[in-house]
């Protein structure tokens, strides 16, 4: 539901989204050493394919965004990884859009990067159970922020969207739960099996 399709948003919002996304992607790619490009791509592909798994939540199922998990594992590189994942979603399955690729990248990647910056040091120091709990809460909050950003993008495009945007936020609840719980368990698993996965060493 975080993938806004083409044709819904107004041009200023679309252009603004592209400007911010280009800044985020540009800065993080400039800091990436060229020899680390293949390794980063392997991780981006892994995140993309994991997000295709349908996770059952209550009577329905959700596809995870994994933005919190990405923020904790690859930090600012979340921006290009999300943009590439969204581009593949659009090209392969028709999810999302081309003009909205910028704003969708910002809506999903920015909360994840912020969670990584704020919670990263604590998660790195904590034991598996505590790290999982922290990461789970963080990932849930990242989804909430994404929902808020999608609603804001709709509201900024046209004031007619405001009532629908408010209802849209409620539909993020199942995703928030699924994302938080799965991210929590995944981080706890990584802490036990490969503790250096969260050190940021994988891609630096």
């Amino acid at each position, binding site marked *: 539901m975080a993938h*806004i399709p*083409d044709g819904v948003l107004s041009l200023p919002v679309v252009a603004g989204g592209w400007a911010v996304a280009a800044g985020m992607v540009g800065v993080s790619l400039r800091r990436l050493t060229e020899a680390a490009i293949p390794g980063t791509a392997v*991780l981006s592909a892994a*995140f993309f394919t*994991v997000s295709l798994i349908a996770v059952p939540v209550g009577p329905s199922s959700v596809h995870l965004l994994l933005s919190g998990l990405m923020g904790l594992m690859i930090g600012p590189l979340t921006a290009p990884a999300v943009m590439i994942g969204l581009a593949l979603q659009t090209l392969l399955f028709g999810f999302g859009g081309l003009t909205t690729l910028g704003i969708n990248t910002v809506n999903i990647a920015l909360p994840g990067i912020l969670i990584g910056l704020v919670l990263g040091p604590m998660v790195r120091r904590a034991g598996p159970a505590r790290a999982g709990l922290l990461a789970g809460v963080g990932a849930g909050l990242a989804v909430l922020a994404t929902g808020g950003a999608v609603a804001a993008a709709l509201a900024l495009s046209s004031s007619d969207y405001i009532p629908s945007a408010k209802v849209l936020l409620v539909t993020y609840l199942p995703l928030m739960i699924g994302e938080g719980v799965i991210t929590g368990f995944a981080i706890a*698993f990584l802490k036990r099996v490969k503790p250096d996965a969260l050190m940021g060493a994988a891609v630096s």
Partner: protein
Amino acid sequence: MGLVEAQEQMSVAALPVPGPIERLAPRARLLATLILVIAVTLLHGVPAAAAACACGALLAVLSGQGLAPLARRLVHVEGFMALLLLMLPFTMAGTPLITLGPVAASVEGLLRATTIALKVNAAMLVVFALLGTMEPVRIGHAARRLGAPLRLVQLFLFTTRHVEIFRNEIRRLREAMRARGFVPRSTPHGWRAYGNLAGMVLVRSLERASRVEEAMRCRAFDGRLPAIGLDEEGHGTAACPCLALAAGASLILLDRLT
């Protein structure tokens, strides 16, 4: 007719016939798609949006892809839009059309919802028609030709190359889970299993990442691939974007006049 001739005819008939869109150069297709989708974004009224949707449907037919993949995409798009479109008529002020108890559907709201639905579908049809048959790798090269940043294109190409590997990896892991009697349910146990699955895929991807990096270093990879953004043959490098520009401009003109 000799046997060989008959066989030749059969094999020719079995090959998919490349449609007119397939013969165009990839970067022309990508640029034309971008132009048309931006033009669709700029439309405001029902007539122009309907015309755009009709053009998109025509292109989709020309692209010669079956109805099944198109239907799948349409269902995805409609799923996102349902909430927005169902609420708009009831939340926009204007001339009431139908009254359902305390709420009334306004004419303005209904028109607005129709316009958005037409625009979204028009854009979806254009992307499906012009890019649907192009593999992501070709689109990556085309994007580089159109000036996309080299590092981003490189990351994109390496990513697409590994997506299939991880899809197989996940399939194998899930088969193993099923073999142990795992049933997907939203219980704490089920969620822990999914969390472990995600974690396991990431552990393997980290290991694969370091292997790939070492392998690339062995081949003296310094971050540059000379074969990125090479020109692919095809027609209409200039004509196709120009046509798209003309179509987009006439749609916007129609929109402002009606």
